[in-house]
């Protein structure tokens, strides 16, 4: 390939940025579902990292792990959203700031 092909660093940097955006979203947004979506974003960034390493190093383990991560993310999405629904039923809001009963 040509000399300035895309190196692995680019992928890694991209996934780091995506991760950081996800973190900022988790900490700032107040809607529980949006926070949830930011978490999915973080998971995706990790997936990207794994896949990049797998392709560049020729090891299939990374892609297999991505597969499992996706499966787990799906399961977690289902359960998490179910929790959000039951929360909404009890408190009529999904504003995270108001869900703070578990304190001292």
């Amino acid at each position, binding site marked *: *390939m040509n000399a300035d092909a*895309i*190196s*692995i*660093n680019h*992928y*890694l*940097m*991209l996934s*780091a940025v995506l991760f*950081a*955006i996800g*973190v*900022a*979203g*988790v*900490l*700032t*947004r*107040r*809607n529980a*579902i*949006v926070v949830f*979506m*930011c978490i*999915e*974003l973080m998971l*995706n960034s990790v*997936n*990207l990292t794994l*896949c990049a390493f*797998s*392709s*560049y*190093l*020729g*090891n*299939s*383990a990374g*892609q*297999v792990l*991505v*597969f*499992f991560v*996706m*499966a*787990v993310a*799906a*399961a*977690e*999405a*289902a*359960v998490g*959203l*179910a*929790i*959000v*629904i*039951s929360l909404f039923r009890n408190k009529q809001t*999904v504003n995270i700031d108001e869900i703070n009963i578990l304190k001292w």
Partner: protein
Amino acid sequence: MLFQRNPVMSAMCLIANFFCIASLYLLLKAQFLAVIQVVVYTGAIMVLVVFVIMLLNLGEEQKLSEKLGAAKVLGFALGLGFIAEMAYLFSVSGQNDMALSGQAEMIGSVEGIGSALFGKYLLPFEITSLLLLAAMVGAVILAKKKI
């Protein structure tokens, strides 16, 4: 997605994001993963999220920059801090002239992933199916009106 007020708009942005990542997978010659990404993530998970948003009939979130509270500043600061660390890491790790591995195409294909999944990683595969079962049961029970 981060700065959208309407949650549905946030979901749309995220879907677009997922498509981009799928294309990146294709660049990495991981075809199977690209398709799975579109099918599972965008097709299932985000659909579920949009369903829930519609179901709860959420209104718009308050303006993000209404009160620049300490929490928001902290959140962004932490994100920036993280990026700064990563930048530092990359700057000191030196040039990396790695090219795509020759085997990338082989392991990225359906046959490659399939043989890995049903060969070396059979046990996690089966356990994941159990996990999905548990998640299904949990979700159903959690969302019921009366247990």
